[in-house]
């Protein structure tokens, strides 16, 4: 990993800027979701309690690996997992994200929100050195104990179900490069979310299930990367089956 001191410092400044200003933009975003879009998280209190307990139960950093159906999954996820007060007390649990630069950096308002909201932009399929630089930043953050959200499917699932054909191995690489890394698989879905979309429909009620595990692989190198990514996807598939069994489909 060849992250320069200047880049590490820039991440620290971004983290502190996000933390200090969180009461302002956090209130804005949560109000937008609760009162304008009228979103609801089912069993919110229990979910936050569970996340807190899971966080306490492990020593190493956590990579959150959710399924991916909408452009604001990571926002809904951060809202679901802890209260504003918890984030103000310990902003390290507020998960960093790796949004596609082309999707979120086209105007200044989104740019500022992404910066304050702990985003490390990534150019998927772009220059490999630039992608590697973004991943190096993520590895640095994980080693510092920050929480990161990585969508193992790589993009919003075009089928509306876990995408088994196009999932990426990046998360496997992160797990193998960061000691004691834990993975929190999260299945998040709006009750009327049939397929992928920009943002969920107004009034959506979200189901959220999570499961923490520490991926192990008998392989090394690239094979371990693929193996770990496969284990995470397999877990998400089981969670999805459990969701559809619960809703009777």
């Amino acid at each position, binding site marked *: 990993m060849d992250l320069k001191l200047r880049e590490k410092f820039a991440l620290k400044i971004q983290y502190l800027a996000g933390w200090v200003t969180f009461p302002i933009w956090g209130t804005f975003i949560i109000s937008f979701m609760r009162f304008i879009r009228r979103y609801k998280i089912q069993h919110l209190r229990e979910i936050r309690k569970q996340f807190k307990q899971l966080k306490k139960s492990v020593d190493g950093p956590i990579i959150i690996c959710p399924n991916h159906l909408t452009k604001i999954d990571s926002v809904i996820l951060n809202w679901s997992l802890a209260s504003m007060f918890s984030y103000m007390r310990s902003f390290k649990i507020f998960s960093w994200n790796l949004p596609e630069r082309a999707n979120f950096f086209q105007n200044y308002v989104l740019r500022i929100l992404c910066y304050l909201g702990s985003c490390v932009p990534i150019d998927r399929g772009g220059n490999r050195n630039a992608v590697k630089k973004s991943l190096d930043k993520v590895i640095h953050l994980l080693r510092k104990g920050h929480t990161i959200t990585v969508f193992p499917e790589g993009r919003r699932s075009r089928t509306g179900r876990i995408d088994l054909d196009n999932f990426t191995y990046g998360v496997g690489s992160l797990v193998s490069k960061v000691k004691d890394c834990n993975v929190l698989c999260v299945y998040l879905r709006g009750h009327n979310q049939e397929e992928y979309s920009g943002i969920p429909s107004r009034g959506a009620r979200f189901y959220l299930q999570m499961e923490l595990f520490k991926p192990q692989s008998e392989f090394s190198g*690239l094979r371990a990367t693929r193996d770990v990514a496969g284990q995470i996807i397999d877990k998400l598939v089981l969670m999805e089956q459990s969701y559809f069994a619960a809703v009777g489909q």
Partner: protein
Amino acid sequence: MTKDEVFNKIVDILKRYSKVEIKLENISMDTSILDDLKINSARLVDIVLDFEDIFDIEVADEDADRVATVGDGVNLILAKI
């Protein structure tokens, strides 16, 4: 194993992962695996692992990162066998 033999075996591997038919017919050493053949980075990992199995070699992560074109793959394999 000659350079041409390695090249042909690589083309066979790439055919399994790329759906860009026209480009496959005109593959050269300069063909970009990601851009020209529209293969994503995860499938590139699969391809490098196929290199390991078929040519009985071991490829380090750093070496795999350097594979961008068909020629990079050929040179990597020739250096390892």
